[in-house]
């Protein structure tokens, strides 16, 4: 088990190292002068250029440049955003909480609803409900999340006027306490629903197919032959076996959720990382973009390791290797 975790940690470290390397290489391979890219404007002032050369050691050999860059990252120094004059770290910190708020809510709801639907469909395999869910899951799989968000706004905010169009809270009212929480929750409904609709097909399909797979295993036959009730077989044995892929996929989804949420945040003008990403792209704020990318890589690496460990914990077959 210890060896297994160590090996996973090694792979995780490798992923982060690769991401750092990509970041480093991309900027130096990019067409034009890297100072221009790093400064985020076409005609940076001589002072800016000097500062950049100093900071990134641009006159030095490549290998040394990489070492300088790597050392800065190790100190948690992601540099300054050349657009907002805040440190990149401060920028990200102010945006991460709203993102995690809708990302977690959406991921958990998607997991619960999708899995529940998958279980029902598997139990009634071939029924009208099953067929309907299978076809609709293809549809939502094929839908770009941002477009679905736009349609949600069109229908529920503009036509039906049930929910606000954008933002995280009502800027005209200074709600505090419980009223503020409710206001945020009210603003969350549409973005979270969009996210959930996009997530459901994954969990639905995984739950459905792994339950059907488990039901066809030989040990189910043994349990049946012992006179165990179908209810008990299903809820105790089928579920325990079938839950393994769902847990894995959930972990992976959590890892990637920031990118998944980004598009939806942009649509609903949610003040999170997605918005920051879009702003950084439009203003070519390279340090911020590269910091988000690194952060994302680290979170993916960490989550993958966590998933692998959880996986080994819930599936005894993994542990032997």
């Amino acid at each position: 088990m210890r060896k297994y975790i160590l090996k996973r940690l090694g792979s995780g470290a490798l992923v982060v190292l690769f991401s750092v390397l990509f970041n480093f290489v991309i900027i130096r391979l990019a067409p034009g002068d890297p100072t221009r890219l790093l400064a985020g404007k076409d005609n940076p002032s001589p002072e800016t250029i000097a500062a950049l050369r100093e900071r990134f050691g641009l006159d030095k050999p490549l290998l040394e440049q990489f070492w300088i860059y790597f050392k800065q990252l190790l100190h948690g120094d992601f540099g300054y955003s050349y657009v907002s004059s805040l440190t990149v770290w401060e920028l990200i910190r102010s945006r991460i909480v709203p993102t995690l708020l809708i990302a977690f809510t959406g991921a958990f709801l998607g997991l619960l609803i999708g899995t529940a639907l998958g279980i029902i469909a598997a139990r009634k395999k071939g029924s009208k409900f099953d067929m309907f869910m299978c076809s609709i899951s293809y549809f939502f799989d094929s839908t770009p999340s941002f477009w679905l968000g736009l349609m949600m706004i069109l229908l529920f905010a503009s036509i039906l006027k049930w929910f606000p169009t954008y933002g995280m809270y009502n800027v005209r009212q200074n709600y505090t306490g419980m009223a503020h929480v409710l206001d945020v929750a009210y603003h969350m409904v549409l973005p979270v629903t969009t996210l959930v609709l996009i997530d459901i097909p994954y969990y639905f399909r995984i739950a459905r197919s792994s339950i059907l797979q488990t039901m066809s295993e030989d040990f189910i036959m043994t349990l049946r032959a012992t006179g165990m009730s179908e209810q008990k077989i299903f809820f105790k044995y089928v579920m325990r076996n079938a839950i393994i892929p769902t847990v894995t996929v959930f972990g992976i989804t959590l890892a990637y959720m920031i990118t998944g949420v980004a598009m939806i945040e942009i649509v609903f003008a949610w003040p999170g990382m997605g918005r920051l990403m879009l702003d950084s792209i439009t203003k070519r704020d390279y340090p911020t973009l590269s910091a988000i990318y690194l952060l994302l890589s680290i979170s993916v690496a960490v989550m993958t390791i966590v998933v692998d460990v959880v996986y080994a914990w819930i599936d005894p077959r993994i542990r032997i290797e």
Partner: protein
Amino acid sequence: MKKKRKIDPAKILNVIKNNTQLKIGLIFLVILLFIAFFGPLFAPYNPYRLNDDTLMAPCAKYPLGTDNLGHDILSQILYGCSTSLKIGFIAAMISAIIGVTLGGIAGFYGGWIDQVLNEIMNVFLMLPDFFLILLIIATFGSSMMNVMIVIGLTSWVGNARLMRAQAKAIRERTFIQSSFAMGESKFSILVRHVLPNGIFPIIANTTMNISGAILTEAGLSFLGLGDPNVISWGQIITAGKSYLPKCWWICTFPGLMTIFTVLTFFLLGEGLNRVLSPKMDANK
């Protein structure tokens, strides 16, 4: 020693008939290809032309309305079809070629080559690919060529893993072992026997990758990273975003077309998977 696969048209037709996904997927594909090749002939306007009527709701003159600059939406959609398909096909092909090559080599040669390649695959699998694509496009510029290449370069891992497993399994089969015994070179066995016999799951996966590439391109366009020189559905949606909710038609129709296209390749991929994949499918 080579195993010949006989192709019997009647049999193929029968397979298609019994496979709902494949059937619907093929019908949709024919429609899409028709739009891509002949759509421009039916376009009522030049899609680049700025008509005098801006933000017109769908009417007899403009069946799907116009955008803020007076572009006819229907014409734009018809022209945009080939963009989506081109990006999907080429990106998926690039990813298939890289995946088959690396996966085939890893699985067939085994040993340290396999270990190194496998570790690289693991790393690539864990990289947040959409953001990597975004980062590269943001730095290198958003030409269609860049978009296709970058999507291809970041989506090959699935293919490689499939091919690796295939190559490993095929390597052990008797006809390969006898080719070894007859002194055929490793490289020749890989190219002549292993790759052709193991390619089938890759075909299904590549079809799915077309869907993925089209969705990625739409996402990039939405972030303003689409190629400004071509018409793409993603860009029409992005342009129309600011005119919601009043001018709903600008976003709605290209979005529906995107879904239709992505759905087509999902269905085809699923259908092919059931036909070509050696594994029994629990869903069936």
